[in-house]
């Protein structure tokens, strides 16, 4: 899975949480929690969805790495590479 595919999945799952937001206009370096008004339950749902879709279980300690779209893409790409390599 390449980075574009990961980004698409992330945007889809964020879209499920914040359907009224225009994710195309989302600054990929902005804090998602602020930009999309995501609370702790939303964030847990986001992490749960990533677990189901990508098979990656993000531990709580790594949550901060998912706080921006760019950060999440990088983190998940390297986790997937490690899992497959």
């Amino acid at each position, binding site marked *: 899975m390449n980075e574009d595919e990961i980004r698409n999945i992330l945007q889809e799952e964020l879209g499920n949480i914040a*359907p*009224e*937001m225009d994710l195309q206009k989302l600054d990929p370096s902005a804090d998602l929690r*602020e930009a999309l008004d995501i609370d*702790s339950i939303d964030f847990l749902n986001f992490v749960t969805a990533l677990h189901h879709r990508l098979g990656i279980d993000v531990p*709580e300690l790594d949550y901060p790495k998912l706080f921006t779209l760019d950060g999440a893409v990088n983190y998940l790409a390297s986790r997937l590479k490690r899992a497959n390599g």
Partner: protein
Amino acid sequence: MAEFRMPSLGADMEAGTLVEWLVKPGDKVKRGDIVAVVETQKGAIEIEIYQPGQVEEILVVPDSKVPVGTPLARIRSEGEAAAAQAAPIAPAVTTAAVPEGAPPAAQRPVPAMPEGRPAGRQASPAARRLAQMHRLDLSAIRGSGPGGAIVIADVERSLGGPPVQAEKKRAIGLDLDAMRTAIAAAMARSKREIPHYYLQHQVDVTPCEEWLEKANAVRPPSERLLMGALAIKSVALAARRFPAFNGFYQGGRYEPSTAVHTGVAIAIRGGGLAAPALRDAERLSLDELMSRLRDLVQRARGGRLRSSEIADSTITVSSLGERGVEALYGIIYPPQVALVGLGKAVRRPWVVDGAIVPRSIVTITLSADHRVSDGHAGALFLAGIGRLLQEPDKL
């Protein structure tokens, strides 16, 4: 013969629109079954029934707005003889034609439509709303839901594929303007009638954070716990011990409640607020409470709450979570008599055993009804919540 009536879903509700029947004449119902969907200012609410028996007759057709208390259906109690006009239901005829493995809904006969209602127009609230938004005629749409009911996917199909996502998600049974009107009515009444007093208490929640970190490290995301679940459980346990904060003030007198149903304040995207009940919170394990909380938040935001969750809260908990500010002073939701607010946790220098150490501090507030309790009792109640949070493993 019992009558199933339009329930009152809050002191401010006068009427509701019946949008969907989920049962038909002949169906057996038991206590707690969801039998209908009613549209109110608070969104589409799933209505539960409390009389077990068999549905004898549907008295109100979908899309009718009727006052609270109006009989919606007649229910025959178990053992009661069937009325002469009750049509027998013969599912065997249709079952034969259905291949094995088909969903059970398909095996049921199509529900008899009440008179005057065109057949094939049974539709879910979400589907109805989406169709309305696009000025689609429901009768032109083929339903694929139970009994041929039109579901949202059917409407989307006839629109030519899924619409823009924002539109789709907005379509669910929530009308934010109506919700604002309902909030305004309840809050104005609260400030008019309830003499509030306010207390605050700073609590070291470091034990909770450490316990959560440990517990969640070995759990998959779907089973992880949040601070909010610990807070709700603590408030519920304390509320059981302090009955002056758990109950209803109605008709000039206070009635404490034996059950603890914590209303959970849930922010709705786009500017709304719902506080559905997490029932019997003090009896739930943290795991159960957490999964019920996730379900409740999802349904509140999707506009699909149940009648027992709307009217039954005995005390409200409002938690600002990890963002936001340090303290909130809530307005009590009548006829309740107390609201507990939790601000976000902040790292603060704190004195522990004579040394200054960094700890996570949450400001817990209490808004309470002075007609029922005094500051002294309120202080004991708040301190009790704080103490429970020191031993999260016992929650």
